């Protein structure tokens, strides 16, 4: 089933097409969801919620308006952020545990570099991480982020700049990265 059939089927509320959509795009959308989640289980949970929103909003999607996958990624990101806002339970990232988790996964998927970068992004403070993910990876504009997070444009710019700086520093240290030496909380920096 190609993308066009899936979209048309989902617009008509066809269960088979919805199933095909979930199966076809789960891998790539889970990556987005994971960037905003505490762990992989929570990421899956967020993604399932996001799929329900996608089914609801797909009627308004126009074929000529751009990438379908990009459109879905934006919904996944927006849904995850809204969920956190509602719950007010921002997770506290424990780097040592996640390094172990990701390292074992990285070996399995042979994508060590990507997972390490992902780990570093997740180690950023909540506000920084959200802005960085939304702007750099999901393509949200400053105004859109400001509206979504209920902050000013200048705060968005400032957070993004600081997120980049922090991440570049950590990224440059990546070669000497030793998981055993990191025992403190990254938010204490």
């Amino acid at each position: 089933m190609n993308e066009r059939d899936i979209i048309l089927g989902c617009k008509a509320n066809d269960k088979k097409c919805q199933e095909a959509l979930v199966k076809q795009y789960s891998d790539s959308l889970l990556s987005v969801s994971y960037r905003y989640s505490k762990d992989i289980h929570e990421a899956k949970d967020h993604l399932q919620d996001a799929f329900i929103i996608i089914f609801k909003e797909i009627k308004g999607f126009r074929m000529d308006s751009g990438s379908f996958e990009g459109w879905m990624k934006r919904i996944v990101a927006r849904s995850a952020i809204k969920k956190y806002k509602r719950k007010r339970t921002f997770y506290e990232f424990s780097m040592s545990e996640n390094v172990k988790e990701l390292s074992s996964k990285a070996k399995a998927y042979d994508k060590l570099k990507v997972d390490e970068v992902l780990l570093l992004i997740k180690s950023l403070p909540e506000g920084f991480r959200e802005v960085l993910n939304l702007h750099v990876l999901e393509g949200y504009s400053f105004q859109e982020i400001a509206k979504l997070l209920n902050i000013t444009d200048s705060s968005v710019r400032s957070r993004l700049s600081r997120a980049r700086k922090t991440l570049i520093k950590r990224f440059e240290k990546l070669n000497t990265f030793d998981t055993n030496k990191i025992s403190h909380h990254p938010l204490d920096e």
Partner: protein
Amino acid sequence: MTPKEFDTLLRSLLGSHKIPVDGNEMWIGVQNKLSKKKKRRGILFFFLGIGLIISASLIGTQVYSPILPQSLYHKVSLESPSSITPHKKREQSRTNTSLVSSGDKPTNKPIYLAHKHEANLSGSISTKPSSIPETQVRKEVTTTNQASIPSLSYPTHPILKILPSIPAIEIALVHTINNLKSIHLSQIFTAKENNLLSGLNLKNNWSLGFVFAYGKHHNSFQRSSDLRKNFYQTTRNTHETPLEQLNVGLTLRKDINKQLFFSSGIAFFRRTDIYTDTIFSLKKNLVTNIYKTYVGANVEAAYPTSLSISESIEEVSVYKVYNNYSGIEIPILLGYNYPFGSNALQISLGTSLHYRTSTKGFTTYEYQAVKLPDFSYGEQTVYPQMLYFTALGKLHFEHTYSAKTRAYLGITAEKSIGNILSKASGLSHQYQGLAFEAGFRYLLH
């Protein structure tokens, strides 16, 4: 590294990043969440319904409370309880403590609205609101000093004439279990349903009823033999139909006199069928949404006989069915009332005669409507002529706390006597139903 270079690096690394996940597991999770969401929506509607009833009742009380002219206020204040003579007091106590039967002044009469769900051969349900006449004789003690209140002047606009004078709300929860069993086919249809019934007494013998029903039904169907093979050649081997339904309705009733009542109603009905069909070990899932609007009129004459005429339009995504329903129901209730203090216990046993026919003969529709092209072509008659008897047992307990409040509990059991013969298919069915009810009435004045 410049910010732009950094952004590009991140995008190249994570833009197409994927985390492998089991698609089936994800899809099952999505489906579970979807069904939970539907349940939550049902609960939301339930509370919304309660909110609406209470708001409507309160608005009715606020807006249509009689306004006494200044001169009448003066008159009332002159006839304060302290100025009433002992002779007048005795007269009032005689007036205020009286037996009130169901046919008496409607301002003191509670409204009883019920929806019956009838299952036909194919397992679909028709909704027919009907007023169930109240038979119990109730001892009411009113504390209002009616003798000292002069007659009040109301607005004379015809619409305003039916608006609340002494509003009352009644909320009843009814849990019903129905069971329809086919004799020739192993088909069992069970329905479990919760109804919220409420009513509001209006002016000039008018009353308004509101029903909110949310139920779950289950239809299990299996062809057990070759009987009626030709007729049922289009049916599946087995199917399971768990379904959820929502029913919201409004009924306006006019008590013309003690023996004659007229009611008219409108109802909205939504049902979602999840149809699992098993054919040669292959399972098919089909979700059908049915929306039905009901507009009907009900005349009850020479109580307890009632004549019902209703018109409804059923819309399933593909087809439309216009149904006419007319029938006579004669519930003969042999009741025994045991009033003690402010309590009342009623035990009833009776028989009712049901006759149903379609005014336009048989209304037919095609099975193609349910989008099963391979096994689904055929015709099925809906609303066939039927004549059947039902044995009815009813136990009703009521406690009156004050003139304003009363609560009741009841159980009703019904069973068809002999078989219900469907002339269209020649098949026989048996029907049994059980209903539990709990109600609370509160007069607002």
